[in-house]
Structure formats: structure tokens, C-alpha cells
């Protein structure tokens, strides 16, 4: 009997959305026709008939949609609360919130038809009540949406008149929607930052901030049980950050020259045919998922380096910063190249012609005129690439090491901030242990560093754009 109820809820939900949509379309058509009739009777309308229709469409659709979404989001909590209150008195007395959650979950399971063992009768009763409440809620939802749509339909139909500024009204609603969308992004960002800051704050309650910022040892192993023999964790982020920097430097050493030269070649020297082939290829490189680069680093570059180490007698670790960094660099080549390509193309043709007409060769033109003119844009692009290299996760998780070692030798194994965040959060984690909270602190630092670089880069780029506008 229970699964049928789920069908009822589902079909009512679909029906509510369909109803809302149909009502909106009806509103559109009604107002459109009304406006046309006014027009036909010789009135001069302030707004085109289409705007009258659009106004009604939005007036019906937007509030109904908001109500539906809120309803679907909130009904679960309300129904749970009602079910809990209807339990036999004393059932949840003295239970902690976790245990109450478990009971609710079990009741929901039963209501969904997944019954394990033989639950108590009061649970089965509660499940039945839950199902009934859900049905009622679904029906109520349809009724509310129906009534609302009807009222809004009539209201907006009544507003059709020659003087009504439907055009401005429609625009105001669309404006509101746009404001809403942009605030969603802003509030999400603020929320994420806030949670990072709060958790980091908690972390600094357990580990002093100076130990974190200036500590030279990163050994986040914490005893899980009180009697466990384990090193006391050390949470100094310096070696982790230095590891990130080593990998970033290696990556930029690969990406900057290759990216720049390929951009210059494609922009200034290549024949149109070569360009037509090479540009899409570079874009494909940009589209390769980073996990594939990770394979490449682990399965091709790292073994090759190891073999080279064995052959030459150099001490080369198996997870070298060189392997992870150079592959990250390859990943960034198209990024830098397309950025440099854009900035070079943005240098006005008049400058190029000016230099060529003075008898400069193409190479001299690039070096003495185009490059200086484009350099702010190129620097901005490189900085953006640096911040991507710092934040790069997949390649380093696969190819870099796990042990934080304070070294700047690229042939050694280093770990990065992102790798540590991933390892800290994988496996058994408790949300109040410094080990977990350390991930938030690392995340915040990463965020601060890349944000700083991005802001700097964007300022440089913007300044450059102004010159030739």
C-alpha cells in the first residue's frame, strides 16, 4: 500500500508544475488577446500587446514557482516534525538528536516499503501517518498553486488597459530575477568563505596559529583512540606550501616558454593553414580532463624519470615534483598560449605595420613592439596560470607524494596543499578533530593565496585593456 502513495506524491508534483505552466501560458494568451482587442477598438496602447502577455506570464509563473520550490524544500521537515509529535508519548524522551534522527530515518524507510526485520507497531503506525501526511501535502500543494495561479491570472488580466505600462512591468520582473541570480552567486561565495573561516577558527583553537603558519613539520597523524601509540600531530603548513611552490615553479618553467613561443609563432609567423590546424589542437589539449594528465604523469613520466635515475645514478624519487609539475605545466600550455594569443592579437595592427614599415623584421617587430605592448596582458595570463597551478588537484593527487618534506629539490618527492586536503578528508574523519579541521585551514590559505594572485592578475589585465580601447 505504501509505494502507491509515493506514486501519488510524484504525480501530484508533476501535475502542480504542469498546472503552473499552463496557467502562465493561459495568462499570456488572455492578456495578449485582451490587449489586441483594445488595439482593435482603436485605443493607443502604451505597451505592445506582447508585453501585456509577457507581464501576465511572469506574474503567474514566478510566484507560483517560488511557492512550489519552497514547498518541496520545506515539506520534509514539517512532516517529520508532525510525525515525531504524533508518536506515543515518551518515545523520544531522553534520546539525543542523533538517535531521534535514526528513528525518523527508520520510519521513512518503512514508509518507502523497505522493511527490515519486524519493526514495532508504533513505527508502522507512524509510517502510515507519514504517508498520509505526504499525500495531504501533495494535494494541498496542487490546490494552493491552482488557487494562486487563478487569482494572479485574474489580477493581471484586470490590469490590461491602454495606459498600463506592461513593458516596464515585465522589465522590472526580469530585472528582479537577474538580481536574484546574481545574489545567489554572491551569497554562495560568502557562505563558503564564512564556513572556511569558522572552521579555521575552530582549528586555531586546537592548534596555535603560529604553529600552523610558521611550523616546519607537517605530520597530521592524530591518535584516534586515547590509548593509541602515535606521534603527536604536527600542523606546520610551511613544507606543504613549499611543496606546492616547487611544483608550481616546475609547471611554469614548462608552460610559460612553450605557451608564449607557440602563441608568438601562431600569431606572427605561422601560415594560415598551419594556424588552422594548430589552434584547434591546442584547444583539444585544454579540453583533456586533468585525470588523464594524472595517468600520463603516473604511468609515463614518473617511470621514465625513475629509469633515468637508475641509469644515471642520480637519486630520483618515485613521486618526483618534476613529474607532477611538468605534467601540470603541459596542462597549462594551452591556457597561457591562448591568453598570449589574445593579447598579441589585441595589439593594434597599426603598431605592427608601423614597425614593419620602418624596416623591422617580423622578429624585431615581435620583440620590440608587440611584446612590450602585450606584456601586461601576458603577465596577467601567467599569474592566472600560476593560481591554477597552485590550486591544481587531480594531477598532484595522482603523481605527487604524500609526505611533507621541506625541500626545493624537484627530483625529490613533495606534497601539496591540495593533496593534503584530499588525504585529510579521505577515510574515517571526525568533524571535531584537528586533522579534519586542518583541511579547512589549508583550504583557507589556498583560497587567500589564489585570490590574491587573481586580483593582482585581473588588475594588470584590466589596466592593459584600457590602453587600446
Amino acid at each position, binding site marked *: 500500500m505504501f509505494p502507491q502513495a509515493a506514486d501519488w506524491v510524484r504525480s501530484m508534483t508533476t501535475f502542480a508544475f504542469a498546472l503552473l505552466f499552463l496557467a502562465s501560458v493561459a495568462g499570456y494568451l488572455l492578456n495578449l488577446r485582451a490587449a489586441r482587442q483594445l488595439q482593435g477598438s482603436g485605443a493607443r496602447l502604451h505597451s505592445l500587446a506582447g508585453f501585456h502577455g509577457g507581464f501576465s506570464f511572469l506574474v503567474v509563473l514566478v510566484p507560483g514557482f517560488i511557492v512550489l520550490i519552497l514547498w518541496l524544500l520545506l515539506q520534509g521537515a514539517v512532516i517529520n516534525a508532525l510525525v515525531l509529535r504524533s508518536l506515543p508519548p515518551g518515545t523520544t524522551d531522553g534520546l539525543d538528536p542523533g538517535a531521534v534522527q535514526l528513528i525518523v530515518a527508520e520510519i521513512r524507510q518503512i514508509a518507502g516499503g523497505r522493511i527490515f526485520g519486524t519493526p514495532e507497531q508504533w513505527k508502522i503506525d507512524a509510517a502510515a501517518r507519514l504517508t498520509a501526511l505526504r499525500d495531504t501535502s501533495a494535494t494541498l500543494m496542487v490546490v494552493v498553486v491552482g488557487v494562486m495561479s487563478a487569482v494572479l491570472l485574474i489580477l493581471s488580466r484586470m490590469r490590461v488597459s491602454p495606459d498600463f505600462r506592461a513593458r516596464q512591468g515585465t522589465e522590472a520582473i526580469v530585472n528582479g530575477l537577474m538580481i536574484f541570480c546574481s545574489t545567489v552567486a554572491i551569497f554562495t561565495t560568502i557562505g563558503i568563505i564564512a564556513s572556511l573561516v569558522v572552521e579555521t577558527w575552530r582549528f586555531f583553537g586546537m592548534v596555535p596559529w603560529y604553529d600552523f603558519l610558521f611550523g616546519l613539520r607537517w605530520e597530521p597523524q592524530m591518535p584516534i583512540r586515547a590509548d593509541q601509540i602515535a606521534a603527536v600531530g604536527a600542523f606546520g603548513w610551511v613544507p606543504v606550501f613549499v611543496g606546492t611552490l616547487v611544483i608550481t615553479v616546475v609547471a611554469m618553467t614548462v608552460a610559460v616558454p612553450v605557451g608564449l613561443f607557440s602563441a608568438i609563432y601562431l600569431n606572427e609567423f605561422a601560415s594560415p593553414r598551419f594556424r588552422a590546424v594548430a589552434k584547434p589542437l591546442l584547444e583539444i589539449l585544454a579540453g583533456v580532463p586533468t585525470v588523464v594528465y594524472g595517468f600520463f604523469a603516473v604511468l609515463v613520466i614518473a617511470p621514465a624519470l625513475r629509469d633515468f635515475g637508475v641509469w644515471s645514478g642520480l637519486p630520483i624519487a618515485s613521486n618526483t615534483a618534476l613529474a607532477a609539475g611538468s605534467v601540470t605545466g603541459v596542462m597549462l600550455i594551452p591556457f597561457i598560449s591562448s591568453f598570449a594569443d589574445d593579447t598579441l592579437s589585441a595589439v593594434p595592427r597599426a603598431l605592427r605595420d*608601423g614597425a*614593419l*614599415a*620602418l*624596416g*623591422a623584421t617580423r622578429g*624585431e617587430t615581435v620583440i*620590440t*613592439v608587440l611584446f612590450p605592448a602585450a606584456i601586461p596582458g601576458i603577465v596577467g595570463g601567467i599569474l592566472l596560470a600560476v593560481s591554477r597551478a597552485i590550486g591544481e588537484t587531480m594531477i598532484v593527487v595522482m603523481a605527487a607524494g604524500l609526505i611533507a618534506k621541506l625541500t626545493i629539490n624537484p627530483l625529490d618527492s613533495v606534497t601539496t596543499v591540495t593533496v593534503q586536503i584530499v588525504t585529510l578528508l579521505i577515510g574515517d574523519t571526525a568533524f571535531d578533530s584537528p586533522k579534519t579541521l586542518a583541511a579547512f585551514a589549508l583550504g583557507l590559505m589556498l583560497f587567500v593565496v589564489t585570490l590574491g594572485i587573481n586580483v593582482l592578475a585581473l588588475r594588470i589585465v584590466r589596466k592593459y585593456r584600457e*590602453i587600446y580601447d
Partner: protein
Amino acid sequence: MNDMRIAERTVGTNAAKISARGVQVYYGETHALKDVDVDILDRTVTAFIGPSGCGKSTFLRCLNRMNDTVAIARVEGTILLDGQDIYDKRIDPVQLRAKVGMVFQKPNPFPKSIYDNVAYGPKIHGLTRNKGELDEIVESSLRKAALWNEVKGRLNDPGTGLSGGQQQRLCIARAVATSPEVLLMDEPCSALDPIATAQVEELIDELRENYAVVIVTHSMQQAARVSQRTAFFHLGNLVEYGETGQIFTNPKDTRTESYITGRIG
């Protein structure tokens, strides 16, 4: 001011500096310039006039091989500079362009200092042995371009910070600094106000003492004021070429007459 005043036609030595024969230019399939024959005289200002799109710039850009930089452009025919074919395989276009300077329609100073703008050509061609010589060239070029007095105190300021007219004179100084023999100017005044235009026109007249100057202009008054010889282009053809006074007062071709009297344009 009488706009149609005809400049004095004291064409000095009438030696041909550049002679073009049977020049054809194609942009891909478009036949932009058809069979042009012209002799450009030394120490003379030659004006190219004609409705826009008729091929004036195209022909001008043949004279310093700037069309080489346009991938789809193809040039046929012969163009002799001092009797030497400039499209010959042995001619290096880079060196040719040092000898045949060019000033563009829109002032295009490099984003460098005023000094570096003018010193650019001499530096890349290694025309000077030391800083003193370079300083001299920069000063004399700026003087020739009638800009020295306005900028001598701020040679290290960016060239892009000058006014439009000053920028254009800076570009002229930059072209003059490589001591070219021919100076090509593609509508050099079209982005300038009347005062700056008058200054540049005066300058062109002075430059005639040392160079063969070729100027493209859409203003017939300007052609009449500054040039001694005028060539009229129409739809890719060189319709008529001769002494400026004769072209403006007594054109032989009816198309020239229609253009000058404003009936085609």
C-alpha cells in the same frame, strides 16, 4: 583662404625616382589594381586622389612592399626604384622599407617614449655608432617634423600621450629618422583637426627638398595645396596622371572632371 590655391609648380629635377609599369594587385579573387603605369619624380610631392576603395592605398603599399604582409595579396608588374626592381628576389623588403618610409592614416606611435619612437629605426638598422649620434638624429628628425620645440623638454614621456597632430608629426619624425629617399603618406591628415593639418601640410612642403613624397588624400583641396603632380585613380585604374594644375583646371578624362567637380565620389 583660397582652398583651391595651386601650389607653386617648381618641380626641381625631373628625374623619375620610382617607375611602375603594368602593376596589377589581386586580393584573393579581387582585382584591386589594374595595369598601373606611373613615374614618381624625385623631390616632388605626388598626390593620389580618387574615391575610396579605388586602390590608392593598395598602390602606395606596393611601393614599400607592405602588401607582402597581407597573406592574400598578389602583386604583378615591375616597380623600379632608381632603376632597380624592388620585387626582385635579391631585394630584401626589410632594407627597402628603410629607404621608402611610410606614414599611416591614423597616428601609430609605439607605446614607448618620444625619444625611443624616433630612435627606433636608426637602432634596428644600426645607423649610429654611439648615443651622441643617436641623439643628433633624434633631434634633427624632430626638427624636420616641426615637433622639436614642443617636445624637447619631455623626450622621455610616452609618445602616446601627445595630441593627435603631434603624434602624427612624431610618426613623420620616426619615418624621417631612417633617412629614407621616398616618403609615402596614406591620408596623413584624415585624423587631424584643421590646425594640425595645416602644420603637417607645411611640413610636407619642406620635406620635398630632400625626398620624393607620395601622399594619398581624399581631400582635393589638400592635393591642390601640397602637390606638384597628381594621379587620379578610379575603380582600380589609374585614369589620369599629370601636373597638378593641369589635372585640376584642365582634366583630359571626363571621369577626372566628374570627380573634381564632385559628381562621382
